[in-house]
């Protein structure tokens, strides 16, 4: 494995992803992430000096909608995705 993930990095990535990892899980994640980066590095082996950089996977641009209301009130269905609801709203842990 060429890419070595240190403890500080895995802790930082954990904070960003809002994950609290046990020591074993952190070790496993370090190995997994190192392997992933090694795999991605493989792309670097290809000579791309004559390839134009692209910003998107498809050769499509300018896909627009007209500014017309097409959705009605679908609150009942939308709220089915809420773990809990109150007064027509999603209930989440107290957040400031």
């Amino acid at each position, binding site marked *: 494995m060429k890419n070595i993930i240190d403890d500080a990095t895995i802790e930082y990535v954990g904070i960003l992803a809002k994950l609290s990892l046990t020591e074993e899980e952190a070790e496993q994640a370090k190995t997994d992430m190192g392997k992933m980066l090694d795999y991605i590095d493989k792309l670097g082996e290809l000579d791309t000096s004559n390839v134009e950089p692209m910003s998107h996977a498809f050769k499509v641009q*300018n*896909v627009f909608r007209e*500014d017309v209301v097409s959705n009605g009130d679908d609150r009942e269905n939308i709220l089915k*995705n809420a773990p809990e609801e109150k007064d027509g709203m999603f209930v989440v842990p107290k957040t400031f």
Partner: protein
Amino acid sequence: MSKQYEMVIGLEVHVELATKTKIFCGCSTAFGGEPNTHTCPVCTGMPGSLPVLNKQVLEYAIAVGLATNCEITRNCKFDRKNYFYPDNPQNYQISQLYLPICRNGHVDIETENGIKSVRIHEIHMEEDAGKLIHDDWYDASLVDYNRSGVPLIEIVSEPDMRSAEEVIAYLETLRNTIQYLGASDCKLNEGSMRADVNLSVREVGSETFGTRTEMKNLNSFHSIMHAIKGESERQIDLLESGESVIQETRRWDDTKECSYAMRSKEDAQDYRYFPDPDLVPISVSDELIESILAKQPEMRLEKKKRYKEEFDIPEYDINIITNSKHLADLFEETVSLGAQPKKVSNWIMGETLKLLKEKEMDPEDISFSASHLADLIKMTDAKEINSTVAKEVFEKIFFEDVDPKAYVEEKGLKTENNEDLLLEVAKRVIEANPQSVTDYKSGKEKAIGFLVGQSMRELKGKADPVAVTEMLKKLMS
């Protein structure tokens, strides 16, 4: 204080665009709907949903960019800004980091010290977040996603402002430019225009910048003024006592009139931006720019110039009226219906502004029709009603948009033009007040005021006071 300090201020201004639908889905943007009734899988971030850009958002953003002298980015795209917060159901906000739609612009602002140019670094398009409601009695927060996905543009200035006055002038210029374009109503109190203030202080003459702080939650010109004053004093105090300013985000508390730190250093922001793969790139054609330019309305500076040439009204009035698109539209429409410009301007500058101030309303809240003001002015010109009655009727127009003709008819407020009746009343008043008549005849001109008052009372205020005065004078000569 021995050292002289100056402020260095840059602004991030968010403006909600006046589209009918959200930026990436067909949900309504109407303000004030029941919670979550304007939502769908796209704006609640459901897996598998696909955002599609509202074309009007792009057109408004370009229109604002052109009006603020920006370069338009011909090939632009959207990026994802990643963060976790319950008002953001996707766990990323769709925004533009790498290729914002507009760059390198400027607006000219006017203060007591003259005209100055404030540079605009960029304008980008993005989506608004939902609204968190905190219930003190309930151990949880509630989320309403009606605002999630409402289109915003963020206008980022360069750190070119040096005083609170310049900041206000800059915001007013942006506001009336955007209102003129019809791209937003820009109401600070309703959140359709929001300003974050980046501020640092440095010694006068210094070329380098001090450490800046960012202040959020400023929702009126009043709180912006106070926050700038408070924050610059706080920073100067720190420097004077040998301490240093910490780069942080601070939240302004309007009631306590002070700011406090919002985010600690441990909670550093790392948004891990990357291009949004769900949205295809945008290519802005010459034709699109030309069609937007062709639709660009007359802006404030041109309007001011034209008013000066066309209408015989004071420059002060022109400044006030053109500072609000709503007032300017009201003025022009009333004039086009045949009312005299000078009189229309008087009604706007006088009674309209007075009532707005009394009710703490903005010109944008005016809802009466120009035709009713025009009719009122014509009725006054024709002496069908006197000025006291006119003011009373105007209040009814202002608040209830009544038709002045019907209202005057219904309430019997028409001026009494019947010469015989005026003569009869004047005679009676003269007979009943011999002392005032003697006073008047002995040279006390003011005594006639009392007699006019008595006559107007008998006529229930519905006469032309000038005609009544003439009648009394004639009888007493």
